[in-house]
């Protein structure tokens, strides 16, 4: 056992797995505990009575019944956020710059993957293939999305960011916002040229829409029923694999070492014979590819995509990166999971606990509230090192 962990490669592969398990169970248990405690404390209150009137069960049972499903959804969403957040955090780690266009890089990945599947599906071919072939096509779509997004991220870096390196901090940020807006409409232009509308819906194929029932427990009048959509499992597994691979790449290879050295001190790295520009490009490639894969997974999970699909996930992923400590890969993972949890919990319970006054529509701005709170009270994030106030 000890010999296995002595191998650095394997250790780096397995460490994120351990972290993921800790983060997921930790945040899941804490949030569930809080919700159940709240529900327990609110017994007999107006909120409780309103819930009984509406659903026939009291607040505590309602909360408990929904909990497993909410947790599963949270984890799925959290991994998508984590995969996008890694792109932000890698670029930030190397260049100290918020790559605002990352959300559109994500959207491009989603579109390329979905377009590929639509093209393959022409005439409903994809619907009749066997499960294994369906998985094969999904993997190909994910890789296509990764390649497209990675290439686009590099292109954006070379054209819009590299000429501005060394300029005051806000200059590349404004340029990045410009790129983001430009890409949104560029995607829209390309997509609406071929067909009348600019949104796309991923074809239904394989067994991704089926539900796997894990367990069903009878609890008095109601049952706790936990089932997972196959696509959620796919998203989780794919995201975990990517995170493990990325961790390995950054922490256990020579290339990763070079990237880290560029992040730490650019002038010294270049003195040590590292081609700084190449490794910055590489960082964008890796971050973009992760974003692209996340895009295809997002499309698989939420079926419908449009050119503006990246905006909110992108912002939330950025929040996740800040929450975890920007520049820190583990932090992005943690932030993504926590944010996914918080958002889904808010979406599921806010309406019930406020008696319908504030519902799931506020979950989108929850991320901003968290962002502001984190930046005020712990700007370095949960796992981050101290960063300067100014620069």
């Amino acid at each position, binding site marked *: 056992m000890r010999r296995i962990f002595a191998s650095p490669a394997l250790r780096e592969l397995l460490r994120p797995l351990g972290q993921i398990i800790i983060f997921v169970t930790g945040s899941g248990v804490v949030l569930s505990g809080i919700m159940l405690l709240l529900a327990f404390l609110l017994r007999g209150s107006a909120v409780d009575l309103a819930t009984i009137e509406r659903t026939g069960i009291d607040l505590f049972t309602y909360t408990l019944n929904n909990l497993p499903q909410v947790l599963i959804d949270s984890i799925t969403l959290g991994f998508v956020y984590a995969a996008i957040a890694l792109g932000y955090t890698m670029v930030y780690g190397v260049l100290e710059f918020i790559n605002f266009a990352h959300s559109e890089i994500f959207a491009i990945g989603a579109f390329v993957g979905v377009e590929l599947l639509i093209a393959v599906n022409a005439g409903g071919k994809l619907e009749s293939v066997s499960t294994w072939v369906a998985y094969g096509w999904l993997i190909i779509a994910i890789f296509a999305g990764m390649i497209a997004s990675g290439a686009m991220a590099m292109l954006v870096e070379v054209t819009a960011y590299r000429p501005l390196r060394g300029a005051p901090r806000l200059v590349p940020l404004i*340029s990045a916002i410009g790129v983001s807006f430009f890409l949104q409409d560029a995607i829209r232009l390309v997509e609406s040229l071929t067909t009348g509308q600019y949104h796309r819906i991923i074809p239904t194929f394989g067994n991704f829409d089926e539900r796997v029932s894990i367990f069903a427990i009878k609890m008095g009048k109601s049952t706790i029923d936990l089932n997972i959509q196959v696509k959620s499992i796919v998203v989780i597994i794919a995201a975990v694999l990517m995170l493990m691979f990325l961790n390995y790449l950054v922490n256990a290879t020579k290339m990763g070492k070079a990237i880290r050295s560029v992040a730490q001190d650019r002038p010294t790295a270049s003195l040590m014979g590292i081609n700084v520009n190449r490794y910055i490009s590489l960082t964008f490639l890796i971050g973009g590819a992760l974003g692209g894969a996340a895009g295809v997974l997002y499309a698989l999970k939420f079926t419908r995509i449009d050119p503006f699909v990246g905006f909110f996930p992108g912002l939330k992923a950025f929040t996740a990166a800040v929450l975890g400590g920007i520049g820190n890969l583990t932090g992005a993972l943690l932030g993504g999971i926590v944010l996914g949890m918080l958002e889904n919990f808010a979406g599921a319970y806010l309406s019930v606990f406020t008696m319908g006054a504030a519902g799931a529509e506020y979950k989108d701005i929850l991320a901003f509230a968290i962002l502001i709170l984190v930046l005020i009270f712990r700007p370095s994030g949960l796992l981050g090192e101290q960063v300067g106030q100014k620069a």
Partner: protein
Amino acid sequence: MAEKNRIKSMFSDYFLKIKEMINRGKTPYFVTLLYLSLGTILVYNSPRSLISFLIFLSSTLLIYYLKMDNRAKIALAVLVLLGLMPVLGVRNIFYLEVIFQISVYSALALGLNIVVGFAGLLDLGYVAFYAVGAYLWAIFGSQQMFMLHAIPGTAPATSEFFLPANAFFLFLFLGVAVAALTGILLGLPVLRLRGDYLAIVTLGFGEVIRVLANNLDKPLNLTNGPQGITPIQRPILPEPVINIAQTILKPLVGRTVSMGEFYNLFFYLVALVIIVIVIVVVRRLDDSNMGRAWTAIREDELAAISMGIPLVRLKLAAFATGASFAGVMGVLFAASRTFVSPESFSFMQSIGVLSMVILGGLGSIPGVVVGAAVVTILNLQVLQGFSLYLSQLRQSDAVIPIINFAWKNLSNQLDPAKYQRLVFGLILVLMMIYRPAGLIPAARRKRELVTAKNEEPESDSLKEADNGAS
């Protein structure tokens, strides 16, 4: 590279020579008057021509730049803005809409310019303050106050309004105060943040305001949700004034001027007054203690603090000043449109205003106004003209020759008027790369860029200074 510089300097030499030639003696007066009358005649005779309108508008630039007596400049500007513009605008209502929008966006851009250009705080949610002002008058200046407990979409019980129409003028001032207060409330927690974080937080704030406007139809129906609030009152224009204006305008325009057109004119004039106030305030601020302190903060916070500048207080002041201008324009917007909905206050609007500031030149007053004019004309005239042209092509039987593509088959989604993001994005990227100081750079900014180029970016000592600060 050397070749490029040589050509560049050659051009600027020619430019200087022409400038000298025109600026001799009384020539500027003649040139301006000639140009102005040319523009006026062109616009007067062509109802929807972009080029003639541009010629007319650019005459204001000529007034600004040529060497003339200051009194003459002011007189000419008044003539153009108060004399010619209304007549031409009422004659062709389309132009009035354009200049109204230009004036609204100019005021917004000037306000944002204080925050971004002077104090160097990138505010990506500027339109939130605009929304605050707009909803302020929308809620109190409509029947919304009677429908607080009604389901959105139901008709109001009475036809009365909550406040008299002329409370609008009071609300112009209230808009200033409330928006400034909102700015301070937002600024207090977030202004200690570093520039790029601040940008994201303000973006978030902009979205929060929009989502609130969208969803505050329950538990108390404040904003009427996504349907928006309508009708919103306009102030009552006094009868005698209308009659006088009618007698003046009727022969010039050639027909009776409708009430709606008078309102457009009125709101244009109010916007103009606000712009003049903004410009005066901004100019005075720029040379004041506060303005210089802002510049110091923008340049180097650390140095500014060590010189004894109260950082947070001054940043708050910049934030609140910028916000207050947006607030007053919001009130004006709500009254002029008689309708507000969350749609009007999207992130894209914030970026639109930002692109005006960036295009014109950060910190430069004439630049920002020009930027607002250019972007607005681009959106309202160029893109829409292009859309119109495309839809005409779509209805025709024309075919693109080589690839044999019939225009008829062109997708309906391809509507250039909707591609504003493309324009904003291109403006931002291209300006940042090729001309970061803008079309008309501020004098101070110009000097900075020259020195910035000679300095080594991100030297080690700078990094150490950061670590020391944290």
